[in-house]
């Protein structure tokens, strides 16, 4: 009983829909002529403006001031200290390895004037250490010359035990003071 009345409703709705939809088609207007223009694909891409992308390009530390160059050379391991045994100035194998890297840097940067400082630990006498430090600085320099670095590219100075890296009275400190230290002093001719 109930199903019969639902069907009746649906039939009614359908009939009305047909009547209603059929109304606009009573007077069909002639279809307007349609112009079709084929658009050529654009030759140039249209640049859509977007926020500019900033690429972080690090400034070359070796074209900056000398202090920056010194810090960068040591931080990047391009230059490094050479260490010696107590009261000795002979180069150990690891010292030669280190000097070869230093030589690479000096070759890459022939514009730099390099100062090689000879240092000693505090256990020798101050006077003798001045002479010993000069030997250490020159041992480093002579090896670099043997690697093809021009002798004129560097100078030497001995500080003996006057400018220690550290001052504790332990071998852990002393060995760090027995060294040839490299300093970029300036630019050639500058």
């Amino acid at each position: 009983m109930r199903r019969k009345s639902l069907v009746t409703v649906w039939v009614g709705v359908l009939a009305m829909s047909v009547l209603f939809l059929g109304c606009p088609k009573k007077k069909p207007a002639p279809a307007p002529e349609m112009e079709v223009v084929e658009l050529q694909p654009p030759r140039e891409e249209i640049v859509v403006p977007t926020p500019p992308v900033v690429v972080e390009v690090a400034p070359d530390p070796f074209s900056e001031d000398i202090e920056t160059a010194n810090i960068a050379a040591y931080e990047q391991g391009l230059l490094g200290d050479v260490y010696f045994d107590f009261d000795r100035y002979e180069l150990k194998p690891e010292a030669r390895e280190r000097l070869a890297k230093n030589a690479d840097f000096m070759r890459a940067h022939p514009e730099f004037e390099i100062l090689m400082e000879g240092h000693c630990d505090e256990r020798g006498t101050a006077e003798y250490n001045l002479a010993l430090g000069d030997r250490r600085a020159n041992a480093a320099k002579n090896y670099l010359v043997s690697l093809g670095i021009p002798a004129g590219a560097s100078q030497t100075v001995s500080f003996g035990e006057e400018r220690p890296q550290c001052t504790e009275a332990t071998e852990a400190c002393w060995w760090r003071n027995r060294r040839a230290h490299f300093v970029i002093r300036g630019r050639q001719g500058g």
Partner: protein
Amino acid sequence: MTRASKTTVLFALTFLAFWLVPGIGRSQQSIPADEQLSDPEVNVVLEGRQRSRFRMAMPALGRDGALGPQVRSAAEVLEETLRADLDQSGVFDVQGPTQLSALTLTGVEARDFELYRSLRNELLLRATVKQEQGRLILEGRVFDLGSGKVVLGKRYRGDPSIARRIAHTFADEIIVYFSGRQGLALTSIAFVSDRSGFKEIFLMGSDGADQRPITAHKSISMSPEWNPNGREIAYISYYSGTPNIYLVDLSSGRKTPVITTGSLNISPSFSPDGKRMAFARSIGDGNSEIFICNRDGSGLQQLTHSSGIDANPAWSPSGREIAFTSSRTGSPQIYIMDAEGTNLRRVAFEGNYNDGAAWSPDGTRLVYASRRTGDFDIAVADVVTLESKLLTHGGGSNETPSFSPDGRRILYSTKRRGASGSNTQIFVMDATGGNRKQLTTEGNNTSPVWSGFKE
């Protein structure tokens, strides 16, 4: 004696006033040594010299009349300086007011002398200070307690500001009278101090008083060395970037470069006539050799030719030899060569690291730093017999020794290490090793060198 000693004093004071204490000296008048107060009739028995020391009673300085505040404090400085000079001289064993306090003095001379003798005193030094027109007057008399007579009497007059110099002058008079040799009280010591934050050259009196800088390079300055004429000091400075040799004139303070070419010029040492200098200089590949040159840097001449390090020359008092350090056999050792560079011989055979040789004034001994185990000790070697012995035994690293002009005292520095670093101070001791006294406290102080006698 009277005339000679008067001349000596006058000369010494004039010299000091004009040359040694720039700024102070030139603004003060020299002190006239007044007349001898009494002629010594009694000579002290000379066998006293054979004994170690004269025992001398030195009661508190008398104050005669009213003293202004300046003279009053000058009197204290004078008393303290005089007592220290006599005590440090090695000639006297001084009994001061503390040791004499047990005595109940009567004011009667004969009775009081008896009391001083009861404490085994042989001599009595009685001195009085008074003021006259703002100036200080010191009257001092030395009594021989055996005879009760005055053997030495002096009166000095001067500005209160030079109380210390008056005391030194009187002390040296007493010392030369009783020992027959010149005292050190008027001599000076040059040394290196970093108390300003930089190593500079300093001067002080032989008792450690009146420490003052004579360089202000704000760099590294070290290795002072007296010209035997007493008027200038050679030293090295990094003032121009590398260590070079300079001279400082003590009267004007003017600095003159001597050797400034090459990468390393260090350790100057004057010839006894003051006309030439020996030093260490780096040649070619950092190999340091001993050179000599004229005082103005001209006439450069190389004396050593070894592949080892040659450093730290010391010209002998005779002028004929030069001691130096060389590593030609491996470790640093001390050698002597003739001043022409020939006749090389090794001196020190004990120790694995010997450096810093300095000659005794008579040229018979070398004092140097010797490392036998961990740290350095001061050693002395006879240059003929080559026998050596240690004068210090640890307590830090003992280095940079040098003799006093009378050869009886040795200056040196002691480096004591702590957890966070080291501290170095200057000491003086007898040439036999005892009677040690610290002279510095401020900053680190090293490389002490004694001037010659002031004459």
